[in-house]
């Protein structure tokens, strides 16, 4: 793999940031960014430099509300074969997880990719195979491409895909915490390009930099943001030009628009986020599990759910707190016994912070 490293540059940026005398709060919105921050120790370095960085709603499994997980469980309980990313197995619906459902004898299978799910359908023509499709613009094009290239008759999609930028719009409109700048997620941006961020700039006048995932990427992004903040000239910058272009992945966007249409949907921890859900278009209605199995899913009602007591995932997803602020972190709640989705998913703030600190209650 080619490297994106330059220690001289990294050190120089840290020096510059020190000179700037900062007291700012930024948000990134991506599990991989959190992973880089914590694993590299950069988070502590930033903290000392007066830069606090929160993880926002950038964990697709975490933001999928319980009722959508419950739909998958109910389908599995009705004898359908449920295929799912391993990461979503332990997230609870209303009372149990897909993992529990499998232990009770349901046919739930972990897949690495939608292609594996299609293979399962091909190999089991007597079974109805549903793929729980979770993910933002990074994952949804794979679902779209798969549908466009043709799938077996016994294969269905339960779409929990979401457009990511509308959530940032809602988060900024709520104005619950002061945010001085956004580190935009590299891989969502690979697909979307920069246009959604210009919209946020016009509406909220907030500095934004698209960043890659090496420690140096994050340093460069934070440096650029700090300069924007100091100068009082918010703009959209792209630090990750080796992957992100102005217009994004045009082919992937075309596939998305052929297969999906936006609808209003709830995100965990958020009020209704307008036009953020990806629903299969009419042309694909015979592949849409919500339409084909509507009678089975009719009983799944969002009101039936209460968040686990004491869990602060909702606030974490809006960037109001960090997992270290949750009293359950590291004692009642661990990756082996997760209380909320932010501890289940390997992209969740709690899971990442636990992995690199062993659950020690340190303030990073």
């Amino acid at each position, binding site marked *: *793999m*080619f490297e*994106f490293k*330059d220690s*001289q*540059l990294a050190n*120089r*940026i840290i020096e*510059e940031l020190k000179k700037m005398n900062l007291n700012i709060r930024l948000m990134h919105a*991506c*599990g*991989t960014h959190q*992973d880089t921050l914590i694993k590299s120790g950069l988070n502590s370095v930033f903290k000392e430099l007066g830069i606090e960085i929160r993880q926002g709603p*950038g*964990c*697709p*499994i975490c933001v999928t509300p319980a009722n959508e997980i419950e739909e998958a469980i109910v389908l599995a309980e009705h004898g359908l074969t449920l295929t799912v*990313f*391993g*990461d*979503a197995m332990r997230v609870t619906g209303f009372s149990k997880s897909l993992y529990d459902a499998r232990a009770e004898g349901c046919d739930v299978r972990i897949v*690495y*990719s*939608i*292609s*594996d799910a299609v293979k399962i359908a091909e190999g089991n023509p007597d079974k109805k195979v549903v793929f729980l499709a*979770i*993910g*933002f613009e*990074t*994952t949804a*094009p*794979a679902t779209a*491409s798969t549908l466009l*290239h043709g799938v077996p008759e016994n294969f269905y999609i339960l779409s929990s895909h979401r457009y990511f930028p509308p959530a940032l719009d809602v988060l900024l409109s709520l104005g619950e915490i002061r945010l001085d700048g956004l580190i935009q997620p590299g*891989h969502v941006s*690979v*697909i979307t390009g920069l246009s959604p961020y210009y919209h946020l700039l016009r509406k909220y006048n907030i500095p934004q930099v698209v960043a890659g995932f090496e420690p*140096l990427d994050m340093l*460069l992004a934070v*440096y650029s943001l700090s300069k924007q903040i100091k100068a009082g000239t918010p703009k959209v910058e792209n*630090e990750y*030009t*080796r*992957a*992100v272009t102005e217009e994004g*992945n045009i*082919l*992937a966007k075309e*596939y998305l628009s052929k297969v999906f249409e936006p609808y209003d949907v709830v995100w965990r921890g958020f009020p209704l986020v307008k036009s953020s859900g990806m629903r299969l278009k009419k042309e694909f209605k015979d592949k849409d599990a919500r339409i084909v199995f509507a009678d089975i899913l009719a009983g799944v009602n969002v009101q039936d759910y209460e968040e686990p007591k004491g869990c602060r995932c909702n606030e974490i997803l809006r960037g109001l707190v960090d997992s270290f602020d949750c009293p359950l972190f590291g004692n009642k709640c661990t990756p082996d016994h997760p209380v909320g989705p932010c501890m289940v998913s*390997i*992209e969740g703030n709690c899971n990442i912070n636990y992995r690199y600190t062993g659950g020690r209650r340190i303030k990073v």
Partner: protein
Amino acid sequence: MCLAIPGRIVEIHGNIAKTDFGEGVTRNVDISLVQAREGDYVIVHAGFAIQVLDEKEAKKTIKLFKKLLNIPV
């Protein structure tokens, strides 16, 4: 699932590319979302390549920031 990883394409057969992720790990990756050639580095996400990485741009970014900070390049 969202952790996207870079790999290098070794062989292409239609929409499927054998991709090397280093340390002896190779996987078949669907390349229907990108225009990739053998030898390209791609970002892979849940079994699909979502973009070809541009090594020249990586070097350019580092150069640009070095210039900005008066570090000799």
